[in-house]
Structures are given as structure tokens and as C-alpha cells.
């Protein structure tokens, strides 16, 4: 799997549609302070489902959308797409190219797409689980992330190791399973309650 390109539109300082293409090897993003370099790393985390706007250096979710300048009007929506080459089928889908998109409107509505078809954020998490670029992965390291890894409690740190060890997918399945068991038990209890009530009525 490889990251082919990234498209930003209306995301933070990227008012116009901007396409970044990535080759194999090292791509360095350079430029003066305040030109919007770090907005690129924010965009990657945002597409992968980052929910905390503060992690993206914003106050409210609207701050993600291009806010306009003295000469430009604000945009109505922010959109970021990541294009992956999946010809080795590292992602569990038949497509050889996978496009993941997130869009946010001023109304606060957030939409996710896989290959242009609407999906839930959970579907994106499932698609990328254990590839090393999931939510708690080390795929995007910012300056604040460095401190978070070192200052975090040992228990918080283990989450990153779980992702790398490839057991977060199991953990998710286990949590789902436990939830189903709990639900079934609740249902059983309700049936038992109903039965005892009915039995009481039958008695006399």
C-alpha cells in the first residue's frame, strides 16, 4: 500500500483545490513559518477521523473550514481526500485504488466517503485497522505528539503498542462480542420478568 496523493479544498488555509502527489521515498514539505505546512498534517489526521478540534489547532469544528481573507470569501465546506494505491490489497477491499474523503459543512455536518460512497467513520476505522495508520497509530507525529507519548501514563502508551502489535482489531471484536452478550442477557432478564408477572396472574 502506498499513499499516492492528497487533495485539499477549503481546508484551513488551502482555499483552492490543492493536490499533493507523493512518490516513494521521502517527501519533504518546506516553506516559511505560517504558510500552512502543518495544516497538511492536520488534514491527514482529520481524514482519518480525528474528532478533537483542539488536536487540529482549532477551537470549534468550523475553524477547519477556510475562513476567508480580506479579498476572499469564506468557503462553505472543507474537504480532504487521501488516495491510496491498494494493488497489493493490503486493505481488505477489491479496489486497487482507495480514496478516503471527509467533508465538513458550516452547519457542522460531517460526511465520510470510501471511494466516493458515503460511509460511517467506523467503516474507515475498520478499513485501516492494523495497517499502522489507524487512529492511535504513530503514522502522524507532530510536535505535541512527541510530548504526549513521553508524558502519557504507561497505560495510555500501551494503546499505541496494541495498534502496532495488530491486536486492536481483536480488541474491537471482543468489545462488540461482550456488548452482544450483555444485550442478550438484558433481553433474557426482561423475558424472565415478564414470565414471572404472567405466572402470578395465572396462580389464582
Amino acid at each position, binding site marked *: 500500500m502506498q499513499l499516492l496523493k492528497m487533495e485539499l479544498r477549503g481546508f484551513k*488555509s488551502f482555499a483552492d483545490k490543492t493536490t499533493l502527489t507523493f512518490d516513494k521515498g521521502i517527501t*519533504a514539505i518546506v516553506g516559511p513559518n505560517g504558510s500552512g505546512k502543518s495544516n497538511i*498534517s492536520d488534514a491527514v489526521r482529520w481524514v482519518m477521523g480525528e474528532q478533537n478540534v483542539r488536536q487540529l489547532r482549532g477551537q470549534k469544528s468550523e475553524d477547519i473550514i477556510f475562513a476567508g*481573507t480580506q479579498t476572499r470569501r469564506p468557503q462553505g465546506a472543507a474537504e480532504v481526500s487521501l488516495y491510496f494505491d491498494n494493488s497489493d490489497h*493490503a486493505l481488505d477491499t477489491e479496489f486497487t485504488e482507495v480514496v478516503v474523503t471527509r467533508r465538513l459543512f458550516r452547519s457542522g455536518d460531517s460526511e465520510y466517503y470510501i471511494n466516493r460512497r458515503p460511509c460511517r467513520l467506523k467503516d474507515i476505522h475498520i478499513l485501516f485497522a492494523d495497517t499502522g495508520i489507524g487512529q492511535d497509530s*504513530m503514522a502522524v507525529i507532530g510536535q505535541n505528539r512527541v510530548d504526549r507519548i513521553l508524558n502519557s501514563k504507561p*497505560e495510555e502508551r500501551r494503546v499505541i503498542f496494541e495498534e502496532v502489535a495488530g491486536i486492536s482489531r481483536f480488541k474491537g471484536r471482543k468489545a462488540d462480542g461482550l456488548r452482544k452478550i450483555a444485550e442478550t442477557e438484558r433481553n433474557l432478564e426482561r423475558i424472565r420478568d415478564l414470565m414471572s408477572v404472567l405466572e402470578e396472574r395465572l396462580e389464582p
Partner: protein
Amino acid sequence: MDAAMAEQFAKAFKEIGVHFQDIFSRLFGGGTAHLALTDKEHILEAGVEIYIRPPGKKQQSLTLLSGGERALTVIALLLAFLAYHPAPFCLVDEVDAALDEANVERMARYLKNYSGATQFIVITHRRKTMEAANTLLGVTMEEKGVSRLLTVKVDELLKEGT
């Protein structure tokens, strides 16, 4: 399922630990580092402790490290993860800012070594890191508040030059 998870975690943890030690000492040009679980009995809940000793110093608490040492420690950990399980891409945002020249050069060399398995996207101000890159993407703000992009393929430029 718990048993399988514990086994897989323990195996991965051990391997990552070995890579971490190795990469740490190579990035720092010496010193030692190791990872430990806070509770060996309960692998599925235990936390992860990081112990490091930079070259020429005694073992230190993570909070006492200098900015450059902290950054380099995280880079070592990151590369250890990638050595265990290569991620398709990895984006690092100015983690090299706090490093000195020698460390930047060592880091850039390492990224280059690993860039066969993993694509690296580095946001940087450091010359040595830029020199290691295959492609440079320049972000500018000619119009106030609006970012623009310029692409320079270093590899192709070098080819043309020779």
C-alpha cells in the same frame, strides 16, 4: 481470544523492544534504552514503561530529558515500530526542530534507509533533512491567508545535473 491476544502482544512487544534498543543507540551514537511492562502478570492491561540512558549519562526519567533527546527518543520508538510492522506512510511534523546538526544528519540517514518500506512525509526547516528527500513540496503564501504549493523533484533535478 484473550490468550491469542496476550501472546501476540508479548511477541510484538519483545521484538519492538529489541529494535528500540538497537535504533536508540544508533541514533544517539551510544547509550541504552529498553521497554518494560508495568505488570508482567497481566499482559493485556499492563502499561508500557520506557527506560533510557543517553550516552555518557546515567539512567534518566523521561521528564528530565532535553528537548532534543526527547524528540530523538520518540523517533527511535517510531522507527522501532516501523521495523516491526512497516506502515504504508508516516508523516512527521518538525520533530527534527530540536535536534542538533549531528543528530539531524543521523536521523535523515535513518529515514532514508527505511524509506524503501515506508513512505516518509516530513515537514521540516532543516537543510540536512531536505537533502535526504526525493521530492520537495514548497508551501507558500503569496496571497495573504491562502496557501499555495510548489513541487520540486530532487531526484530528477540531480539526474539532469549529471
